């Protein structure tokens, strides 16, 4: 597949071509950056490091109606999933995270809602030229220019965006953009290589994950969980902003004679998570909840799907109000092993 480039002055035209399909891209929503449907391409923000909310929200919306029902009608009405065209500007960690989450949604049954969105979408990735201070993707098998989970990888050069198609969908997109694109030169490819290499050098935070998944459960009663949980507020930031966290709750929301069954994000850091109808909760305090968060990512998920459910995007570190730092926890884990 041929590598192309779109010059900066033609990028707006490129966005217009992408916008012929339903296009999602990073934009300011309220005061924060997240993926949203593009209605005005001048609002697309690709320069920022990464979005606050990961693009998982497109494939696995925070709230989604599974079906509607009404009194006196035994038919249930599943809503149409709707169009998902192109997801533009997905960072390599987030694209990889979605591949990890795919495991969960296609494990015993294919989740029809999730799968339909994944199948429909064309993921246009964007290599990280300037990783953030808390990025540690290299430690988890990622890379600032990783192509896993993408149909096309873009790299921002000085005067153009390099387009590297990776799948048939990506190739199709490149062809659709033929009018604004031109073949990339050997210098362009070398420049991109150089940027990717520089980005790798800029990632300073790391963790050696070897030995963690198999030994983590042995630290069940270790004091480190209590020490970490002491300052934890029990809010949902680390899990909601995590690109691989995928826990959900299902609730019925009924108004009058109509109702809808909804699926919504849940967080293992919440008090009512796994609260039994009896009033018993197997994870009664933040100690057990913190332990669960780390064990789920670094042990249970690995047991089941053979991959760590963390991609090193650094969001949980960046946004934790009390500086609970997963790398610090993992360092303590390594020490205790």
């Amino acid at each position, binding site marked *: 597949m041929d590598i192309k480039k779109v010059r900066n002055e033609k990028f707006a035209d490129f966005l217009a071509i992408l916008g012929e399909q339903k296009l999602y891209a990073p934009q300011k*929503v309220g005061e*924060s950056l997240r993926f949203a449907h593009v209605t005005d391409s001048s609002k697309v923000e690709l320069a920022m490091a990464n979005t606050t909310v990961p693009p998982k929200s497109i494939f696995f919306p925070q*709230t989604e109606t599974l079906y509607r029902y009404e009194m006196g009608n035994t038919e249930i009405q599943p809503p149409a999933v709707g169009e998902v065209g192109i997801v533009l500007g997905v960072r390599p960690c987030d694209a990889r995270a979605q591949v990890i989450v795919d495991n969960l949604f296609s494990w015993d049954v294919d989740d029809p809602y999730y799968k339909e969105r994944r199948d429909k979408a064309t993921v246009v990735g964007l290599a990280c030229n300037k990783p953030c201070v808390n990025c540690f993707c290299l430690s988890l098998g990622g890379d600032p220019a990783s192509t896993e989970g993408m149909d096309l990888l873009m790299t921002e050069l000085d005067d153009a965006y390099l387009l590297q198609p990776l799948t048939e969908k990506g190739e199709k997109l490149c062809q659709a953009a033929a009018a604004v694109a031109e073949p990339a030169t050997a210098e362009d490819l070398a420049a991109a290589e150089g940027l990717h290499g520089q980005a790798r050098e800029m990632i300073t935070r790391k963790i050696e994950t070897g030995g963690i998944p198999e030994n983590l459960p042995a630290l069940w009663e270790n004091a480190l969980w209590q020490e970490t949980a002491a300052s934890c507020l029990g*809010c949902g930031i680390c899990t909601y902003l995590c690109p691989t966290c995928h826990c959900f*709750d299902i609730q019925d929301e009924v108004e009058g004679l109509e109702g809808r069954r909804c699926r919504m994000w849940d967080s293992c850091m919440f008090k009512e998570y796994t609260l039994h109808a009896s009033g018993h909760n197997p994870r009664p305090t933040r100690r057990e909840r913190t332990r669960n968060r780390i064990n789920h990512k670094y042990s249970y998920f690995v047991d089941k799907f053979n991959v760590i459910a963390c991609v090193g995007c650094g969001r949980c570190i960046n946004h934790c*109000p009390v500086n609970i*730092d997963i790398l610090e926890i993992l360092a303590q884990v390594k020490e205790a092993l």
Partner: protein
Amino acid sequence: MVDVEKLKEIARETVSRDDVKYLIGWRQGTYGFRTAPHFVGTPEEADNLIFSPLCSHNLATYLTLVEKLPVPRGQDPDSRKVALLVKGCDSRAVVQQLIEQGIGRDSVFVIGCPCRGVVDLKKVEAKFPGMREKVSATWGNGTIIFNLPNGNVEVPRQEVLAGKCLTCRYPNPLLSDLNFGEEVAVWGSDDYADVKNLEAGSPQERWSFWEEKFASCMRCYSCRNVCPMCYCEDCVLDRLNPQWVMRSVNTAENTAFHLARAFHLAGRCIECGECERVCPVDIPIMKLNRKLSKEVREKYAFEPGLDPESKPLQASYRPDDKEDFIL
């Protein structure tokens, strides 16, 4: 100058007392300008304590956030005190918790730290982006001095202090069992200019301002959880039956959440600004809280968290209340 060695000395003595369980203060964070709450259980752990313009956390929230586990049969509950470092605004949270009997006076040992203002991390990280190395800071003369890896940088405090600190009227703790450091002169005054600005808009303008903010809320509940005054054991927002606020995240339910939260804090919010600091999507939550604070001050000449002997606003009755709002 903050004599941090003196602070550590005080902390060592405090945690060595028989009637103190542990002390909560601040420590350097894991990167950049971040700091973190620090739980000091032994005299050795006091070595990591700091007190600087980076210590924004209001630690009073941990007095009520602590989880009460069932006491094993045959054991007595641990009734020792929690020692707490408080800035001026933080002390008002402790006072308000005492007023409401959320905590008992003998459950807490308060160490007052007069404060010359803490930074707004967003302003600091925008000024010095991409800081990986750990940075400390001190108060200068009308400035904040950052000890960056390649030397000290002094910044006028207006540029980096949190908004709440620029208008702060209570920099000195209003309640303490022990004081650390010199009392500081009050610099701020508060005319609620930010609230008045917003009030000047038409209802449509105000709603479109808030609609966009509420729509962006993810309901992570960090604003509620960090709040030292949000300590109901059974929060209305977590209730499933009846479910007052649906779990669906949409503008309507998010609005219900934000209004419920704000109204439950009317006459109780001590304006430490923690809710706004922790919001991952930068909703200006303090504008809502301060609208209610302004109403409470204007209508009842009342401010919460000042006098532990006073009554909560909603539990006080005065025959000379104006009542001009009753139709």
